[in-house]
């Protein structure tokens, strides 16, 4: 099962590597990873998506919690949550691709006679479907932000 794990971590050199390294050391995979400083910038919020059983994810979150620089960890998939992913795509003029991206909050950033740059965002499951539908034809380049997400309702993850 796909899991979305949110991590608050001290914004210190090497902190990110400790989290990423841990997944490898403990035999788990990272599917997507997003990180950036939040609030006063003294700490960052990371969002990692991974796959695993209930037990696997319990172990992962416990092990992440043990990292000294990690302040808080939460498995968003444990409860209701919002989750989105942002993508940017460069492609040769294609009405098909344009149409697919338009259906995902698509926005055109650059329009050339040869190529076009668009962005889009939506739930990562929709993004996956879109990427599959776009296929290889006319596709030049693609960048993904990885999932980010928040708990639904009153629950917040902050210091």
């Amino acid at each position: 099962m796909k899991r979305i794990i949110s991590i608050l971590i001290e914004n210190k050199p090497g902190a990110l590597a400790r989290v990423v390294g841990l997944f490898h050391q403990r035999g788990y995979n990272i599917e997507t990873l997003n990180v950036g400083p939040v609030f006063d910038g003294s700490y960052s919020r990371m969002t990692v998506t991974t796959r695993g059983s209930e037990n696997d994810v319990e172990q992962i979150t416990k092990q992440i919690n043990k990292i000294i620089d990690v302040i808080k960890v939460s498995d968003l998939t444990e409860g209701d949550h919002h989750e989105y992913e942002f993508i940017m795509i460069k492609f040769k003029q294609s009405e098909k691709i344009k149409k697919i991206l338009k259906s995902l909050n698509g926005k055109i950033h650059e329009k050339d006679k040869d190529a076009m740059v668009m962005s889009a965002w939506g739930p990562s499951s929709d993004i996956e479907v879109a990427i599959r539908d776009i296929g290889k034809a006319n596709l030049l380049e693609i960048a993904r932000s990885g999932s980010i997400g928040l708990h639904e309702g009153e629950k917040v993850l902050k210091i």
Partner: protein
Amino acid sequence: MKLSGGDLLMRALKDEGVKFIFGYPGGAALHIYDSIFKQNACEHILVRHEQGATHAADGYSRATGKPGVALVTSGPGATNAITGLATAYMDSIPLVVISGQVQSHLIGTDSFQETDMIGISRPIVKHSFIVQNTQDIPRIIQEAFHIATTGRPGPVVIDIPKDKTDPSKLYEYKRAKEVSLRSYQPRVLPHPGQIKKASKKILSAERPVIYAGGGVILGNAHKELISLNKLLKAPVTNTLMGLGAYPAKDKYFMGMLGMHGTYQANMAMHNADVIIAIGARFDDRITNTPSMFAPNAKIVHIDVDPASISKIINADIPIVGQVKESLLALIKEIKRSKIKIDSEALDNWNIQISKWRAQHGLNHDLYLSKIKSSMIAPQVVVQELYHATQGNAFVTSDVGQHQMFVAQYYHFNKPRRWINSGGLGTMGFGLPAAMGVKLAFPKQEVVCVTGEGSIQMCIQELSTCLQYNLPIKIININNEALGMVRQWQDMNYGGRHSASTYADSLPDFVKLAQSYGHVGMKVTKQSQLKKTLDKAFAMKDRLVFIDVYVDPNEHVYPMLVAPNGSMKDMWIKKNTKA
């Protein structure tokens, strides 16, 4: 008064109460070494290889309970410290390892003796720091000691670029009253509700077993463990790391459990209805096949590290907290409880365990009387050592058959007396660890039981022992082969001894010891053993290397049957399964 980075470091170490630094100098650490020269609060012990420095600091820590400190230079100095860091990490030993680093502006340029120590050590440390501002050194040292020694202890690395200890740049020394880290607040007190549940479960047990590990020793909770069992009168087993946590002489003690645990301890675990795991982590050398582990047991698991709980074996009642505080709470709750232990069931259970012990327990008399004139059984060497030291010595070991024989036949009654590399299984650990112990306890008997394979992995430290006058006793259980490797080859590979023998190329250990300025003795006959040991231990101020030739065909038993075995499946002697 303003101080240089090196002086700030030494001042901070002094304020942490550091008595010894085990280290080896080199370019990137030279400013620090100059600061060491100018102070006398900490004694620097010059080892002969950085692996020795980390193991010596580790041995010091295991024996004293205080954090051990090592100092190495950049590049090869740092990489040589890696095995010692991994050893300490696996056994949760508090170490602070300081590594010199090339100058900040050279980092990342593949400069001379540059290596990414933070990157290399990342998976085998509890935490690590790189010094970016000299004035941070005192704070980093304080935080490093705090992190190393609290919660589940472990090694911490501090990497210091050479320019951060520049003697011409001076800063104010500031020490905080206490360390507080928002991202690190290990749990101390157990959850009262869990304690209540645990007490109820334990008091309703008919076949309880206390399974106590290294956490009891690290958490200084052996007295509480004894108090708990004064109430429960349950059979107790200790892990390899936990030996000494519960006194071996006590009638409820079953010996070690696991791969080479006693028959009664493994049988008791398999047949228990409640297992009280205390500061133990259900290592694969304990559980055998996890899905076949203790099929009828409910598990109460006390550990300071929540990640150790339900990692391998699901805990029915998890208790996260310091072992000492958790045991105190549990004792209080049991005393208060109205539930009475079913003493008849418990008596029957203890009788059953006695029966198992009588059936296949370690047979001391047999070994002592076994072979009068021919080859010496390695078990006998350990038994004679036990008698020669009245069971009071600090015993370090390396890794392999000799280690298991000590665990089985040297009966540890006190914690912190048995010093071995359990988790990582590091050959070469024993001699440098013994140096650390001897420095901490110069008046106590310190023995390194080793094998002719292991001892050659850090033999260079014999020179350190001479320099600092460390009269430890080394018992080399010499079977002219990598004994445990050969045992596995005998049992699983048709006796094909691939790369496990070297009888024709072993050094003359007596002459070797002598060339390092020590005393060497050789024993080949059973009749010489006791006399030689007595003679060696009478030489209080000399390091004596006793090379004991033993029966090379001896195996360690019991041994769990693997793969696909449970804890009740054991080889109890050659070709015989219980």
